[in-house]
C-alpha cells in the first residue's frame, strides 16, 4: 500500500514537472520575441523591454530561465502581472476561495444527483431509465454556458430568485450567488457521472456473483448494497474523480458567464489580455489540481479494491 501511494505520488509529481516544462516552454513556441509577448503584446519603451528581459532572465539559456521560474513558483513568488501590475500571488489568493467554493458546491451537486440518478436508472425499471436517459442526453449536450444562459433567463430575469452577477459577501450570500454558476457548471458532468453510474450498476447487476448472491437468498436491498453498489463503486469513483478534477477547467466558463470573480475568469481575462505570466501560473495550478484529485481517487480506489494494488498503473 505504501509503495502504491509512493508510486502514484511519484508519478503525479513527475507529470506536474513535465506539465510545468510544457507550459513554460509554450512561450517559446509562440511567434515573436518572448519579451514582447510577456509585455502583453503592447508597445513598450526599450527600457521597459530591457527590464522585462532582466526580470525573466530572457538572455539566459532555456533551462536556467525555467529554473528561475520554477524557483519563484516554489518559493511563493511566481512574478507580477504585466498588465495588472499586481503580484500573481495577490491575484490568486483573492480569488481562490471563490473558485474552491464553486468547485466544491458543484462537486456535491454532481456526486449526489449524478450517482443517485445513475443508480436509479440502472436498478429501477424501464420507465425511470428511459426518462433519465433523455434528461442526461440533453444535459450532456448542453455546454455550461448554454445552461448559464437558460438559468439566467429563467431564474434571474424571469423569476428573480438568484442574482445574475458577482460572487457575494459572507458564506450564505456567496452560496446564494454561486448557486446558478454551480448548477450551470454541474449539468454536463452530472449527466456523465449519471450515465457511467448506470452502466456500472447494470454491469454488476448482470455479473455472476450477483446472481450467486441472489441464489443464496439474500434480500434485494442487501444484494444491491453489498454486491452491486459496493462493486460498482471503484469505477464510479474513478470517473467522478476525473469529473471533479475537470471542474477546475470548467470554472472558466461558469465564472465568466456569471461574472464571478474567480480563478477561471481570471484565466480567461488574462488570456484575452495575453497576460502570460498569470496564464502560465494558473494553467499549471489547474493542471496540478486535476492531477492531485486524480491521484487521491486512485489511492481511494485501491483501498476499495485491493486487486488494483497488484496491477500495473494503466
Amino acid at each position, binding site marked *: 500500500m505504501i509503495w502504491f501511494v509512493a508510486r502514484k505520488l511519484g508519478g503525479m509529481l513527475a507529470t506536474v514537472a513535465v506539465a510545468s516544462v510544457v507550459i513554460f516552454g*509554450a512561450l517559446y513556441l509562440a511567434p515573436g520575441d518572448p519579451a514582447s509577448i510577456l509585455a502583453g503584446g503592447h508597445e513598450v519603451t526599450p527600457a521597459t523591454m530591457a527590464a522585462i528581459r532582466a526580470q525573466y532572465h530572457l538572455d539566459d539559456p532555456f533551462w536556467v530561465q525555467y529554473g528561475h521560474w520554477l524557483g519563484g513558483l516554489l518559493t511563493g513568488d511566481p512574478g507580477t502581472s504585466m498588465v495588472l501590475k499586481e503580484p500573481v500571488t495577490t491575484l490568486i489568493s483573492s480569488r481562490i476561495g471563490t473558485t474552491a467554493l464553486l468547485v466544491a458546491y458543484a462537486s456535491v451537486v454532481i456526486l449526489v444527483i449524478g450517482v443517485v440518478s445513475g443508480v436509479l436508472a440502472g436498478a429501477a425499471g424501464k420507465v425511470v431509465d428511459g426518462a433519465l436517459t433523455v434528461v442526461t*442526453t440533453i444535459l450532456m449536450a*448542453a*455546454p455550461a454556458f*448554454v445552461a448559464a444562459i437558460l438559468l439566467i433567463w429563467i431564474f434571474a430575469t424571469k423569476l428573480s430568485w438568484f442574482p445574475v452577477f458577482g460572487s457575494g459577501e459572507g458564506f450564505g450570500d456567496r452560496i446564494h450567488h454561486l448557486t446558478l454558476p454551480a448548477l450551470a457548471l454541474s449539468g454536463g458532468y452530472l449527466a456523465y457521472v449519471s450515465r457511467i453510474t448506470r452502466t456500472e450498476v447494470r454491469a454488476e447487476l448482470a455479473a455472476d456473483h450477483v446472481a450467486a448472491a441472489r441464489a443464496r437468498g439474500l434480500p434485494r436491498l442487501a444484494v444491491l448494497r453489498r454486491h452491486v453498489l459496493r462493486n460498482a463503486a471503484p469505477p464510479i469513483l474513478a470517473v467522478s474523480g476525473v469529473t471533479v478534477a475537470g471542474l477546475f*477547467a470548467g470554472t472558466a466558463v461558469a465564472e465568466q458567464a456569471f461574472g464571478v470573480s474567480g480563478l477561471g475568469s481570471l484565466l480567461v481575462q488574462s488570456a484575452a489580455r495575453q497576460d502570460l505570466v498569470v496564464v502560465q501560473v494558473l*494553467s499549471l495550478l489547474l493542471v496540478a489540481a486535476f492531477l492531485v484529485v*486524480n491521484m487521491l481517487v486512485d489511492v481511494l480506489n485501491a483501498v476499495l479494491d485491493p486487486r488494483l494494488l497488484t496491477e500495473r498503473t494503466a
Partner: protein
Amino acid sequence: MAAAVVCVLVVLLALLAPWITPHDPTAVDPLNAYAPFTGDHPLGTDDLGRDLLSRLMAGARTSLAGPLIVVLAAGTAGTALAVTAAWFGGWFDAAVSRLLDILFAFPGLVLAITVAAIFGAGFTAPVVALSLAFVPMIARVMRAAALRERNLPYIEALRVQGFSGWHICLRHLLPNLAPLLVVQAAIGFGYAMIDLASISFLGLGLQPPASDWGLMIANGQPSILAGFPQQSIEAAVAVVITVVAFTVVAERLAERFGGGVR
C-alpha cells in the same frame, strides 16, 4: 434514425449555407432590431437587425468545421499511437501511456485558453489545442481495444502464419477497430463542439464579424437582460440539438459495435 436525419440535415445546411440563406447574414438593419418571428424573419433578428436564421446557417459552417478537424486530427493521431503502442508493447507502450497521462492532465479548455493566450484568439489556435487535448481521450479507448484485440488468438494465428506486423495491423487489426473509432469520433465530435463553442463564448475563438453559434450566444447575452433572449437561445438550441443528434447516433452505433460513453 431521427438523430441520423438531424445530423445529415445540419451538415447539409452548413455545406449549402452560402447559397440558401434567406438574407445576407451580415446585413445590418438597425430599424428592424429584435424583430419578432415573421415570414420574412422566421427566427427574428438580433440587436443590429440581422436575420437570425441566416446567421445560424452561416454560423453552422465554422461550428461544424472546427469539431470535424479536431475529431479527424485527434482520431488519426490517437489511433496511430494506440495501435503502435498496443502492437509493440514494452517500453514503447509504457512511454506512450505516460505521454497520454500527461496530455490527459491538460483539460481541453485550459489548453485551448493557454494556447489562445500565447498565439492570440482565433479559429486555429483553439482547434489545434483541442485536437491535442482529444488525443488521449481517443487513444486510451483505442489502445485498450487494440490490446484486447491483439491478444486474441486470431492475431496470434496470423503471426504464426508469418504475416508482417504491417499486414496484420492494416488488414486485420484496424478494420476490426474501425467501428469503435467511429463511435469515439461521434462522441468526440459532440464534446469538441461544446468546447469550441465555449471558447467562442469566452471570446477567445472566432472573432467578429465572423460568427459561429458560441459567439452568437455570447453576443446575445446582454440582450437577455433587455428581454430579448432569442439570439442566445436559438444558437444554444442549435448547439444542443446538433450535439444530441451526434451523441445519439454514437450511442446507437455503440450498441451495435461496443464502446460508447466511456
